[in-house]
């Protein structure tokens, strides 16, 4: 089998306004992101023959047919490839992999991959009635389950259980988790699109932020964002004729471990990495920067371990001392990540990797952009996608 290494490239990137942006629906954000990505690449809607959509939570049941909804909204005709895809935070990487495979197989030639979501609603006027706190418990959709009877709610809590195990087994500390939050916030100061641009963070402020679900402070948890983010994937040859410098897909892979992550504390990264680095013909030591899925500070620490930047359990000492911060030896989440820029699921790390590979990072541009490691993590360490991206085809 001929290698897929550098056969395709990301040729366009579209990032809508992010955060507390009200008005567009999730579909509207998806269309806007694709429009921006096409414009960035110098392509038109009529150039698209593939469309992959990762619907965020606010799509609800309509997410099942999200690609058709976006196609209709954009008036796109005669597409040769579409799908709504969902494997949580690993979806974005998996969409790009699907696009690469389809392009290589001749099923499509220009594929838009998009994530969008609009979970935030505009604040109610001060005198408005209603909202949480006064309704009957019947209004809560999650009531009725066994876990709810014990007050066990939300994804934050599931990652809190993992983090508690990690702290117990390896002595990981809040100073170490906080070092990740502080490093990402420092990176965000160079990213004008970040929701926390202009709001630096100290380790003291991290420690002082309220508990959400202990051991997580508020600042251990990612943002919630309205917005959309799209990329355009095409053949390497076609990408070279377009407006932006191509960002080549050198390697890709997936890993979905199954079992109970609470026992293993291991994501799908080891499995995904083996495929991806094999394809790229690269080693971990070739990686010059990382864009890692960071639903929580813990996820970054654990992902660094799972790729082998340090041994399992040594993630805490690894991130301490500014190693992943601006000026550190291993730049990680250079746009501020999901903790400090915006939460577009797996598209947040991919978008930033594209910017870095193109050398368009401005004041946050990494010194060496030769090989970016991009991870997507979904569920509770349940699904994983790896991309190895580079400005160089060889």
């Amino acid at each position, binding site marked *: 089998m001929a290698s897929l290494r550098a056969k395709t490239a990301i040729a366009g990137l579209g990032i809508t306004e992010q955060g507390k942006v009200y008005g567009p629906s999730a579909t509207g954000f998806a269309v806007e992101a694709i429009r921006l990505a096409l414009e960035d690449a110098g392509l038109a809607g009529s150039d698209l023959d593939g469309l992959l959509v990762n619907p965020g939570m606010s799509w609800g049941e309509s997410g099942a047919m999200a690609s058709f909804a976006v196609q209709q909204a954009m008036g796109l005709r005669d597409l040769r490839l579409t799908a709504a895809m969902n494997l949580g935070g690993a979806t974005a990487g998996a969409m790009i992999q699907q696009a690469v495979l389809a392009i290589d197989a001749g099923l499509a030639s220009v594929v838009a991959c998009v994530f969008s979501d609009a979970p935030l609603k505009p604040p109610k006027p001060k005198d408005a009635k209603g909202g*949480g*706190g*006064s*309704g*009957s*418990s019947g209004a*809560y959709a*999650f*009531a*009725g*389950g*066994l*876990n*709810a*009877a*014990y*007050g*066990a*709610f*939300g994804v*934050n*809590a599931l990652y*809190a*259980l*993992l983090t*508690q*195990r990690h702290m*117990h087994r390896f002595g990981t500390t809040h100073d170490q988790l906080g070092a990740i939050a502080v490093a990402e916030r420092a990176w965000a100061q160079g990213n004008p699109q970040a929701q926390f641009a202009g709001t630096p963070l100290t380790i003291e402020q991290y420690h002082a932020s*309220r*508990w*959400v*679900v*202990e*051991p*997580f402070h508020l600042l251990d948890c990612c943002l919630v964002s309205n917005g959309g983010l799209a990329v355009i994937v095409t053949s390497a040859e076609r990408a070279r004729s377009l407006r932006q410098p191509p960002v080549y897909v050198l390697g890709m892979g997936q890993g979905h471990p199954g079992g*109970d992550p*609470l026992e293993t504390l291991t994501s799908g990264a080891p499995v995904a990495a083996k495929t991806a680095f094999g394809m790229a013909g690269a080693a971990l030591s070739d990686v010059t920067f990382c864009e890692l899925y960071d639903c929580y500070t813990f996820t970054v620490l654990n992902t660094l371990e799972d790729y082998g930047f340090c041994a399992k359990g040594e993630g805490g000492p690894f991130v301490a001392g500014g190693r992943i911060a601006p000026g550190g030896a291993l730049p990680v989440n250079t746009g501020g990540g999901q903790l400090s820029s915006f939460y577009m699921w797996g598209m947040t790390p991919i978008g930033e990797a594209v910017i870095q590979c193109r050398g368009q990072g401005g004041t946050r541009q990494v010194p060496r952009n030769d090989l970016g490691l991009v991870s997507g993590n979904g569920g509770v360490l349940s699904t994983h996608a790896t991309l190895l991206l580079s400005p160089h085809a060889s």
Partner: protein
Amino acid sequence: MEAIAKPLPRVTPELAPFFEAAKARKLVVQRCASCGRLRFPPRELCSHCWSRDAEWVPVSGRGEVFSFYWMHQIYHPGFAAEVPYPVVIVALEEGPHVLSNIVGCAREQLRIGLPVEVTFEDASDEVTLPKFRPRG
């Protein structure tokens, strides 16, 4: 302000034997009728041998805290007066992990590895909830 009740679990056909046992002060888990492996919470299939046949069997109710968190966020008004409250994953001596609450445990006392035993709390006429308390 009028107190708001905590959410009660629905007694689904799948969970009925669990609640029936809890009412009788017994903790039960599912056992695969084909390969004998224990599992909780109840599932349609055994993930080892894929058999759909299962029975409910009593367990000791003894185990240790495998992980836990202190919930500070109010997701449901029924818990508003209790935040922060602990949610624990208990590793039963027989193997399965059970999500529950710990009672009669000081904040400083709660740690991974803490030996615990089951206790029962009546939430309604129909529903009794197995919870855990420090042991020995």
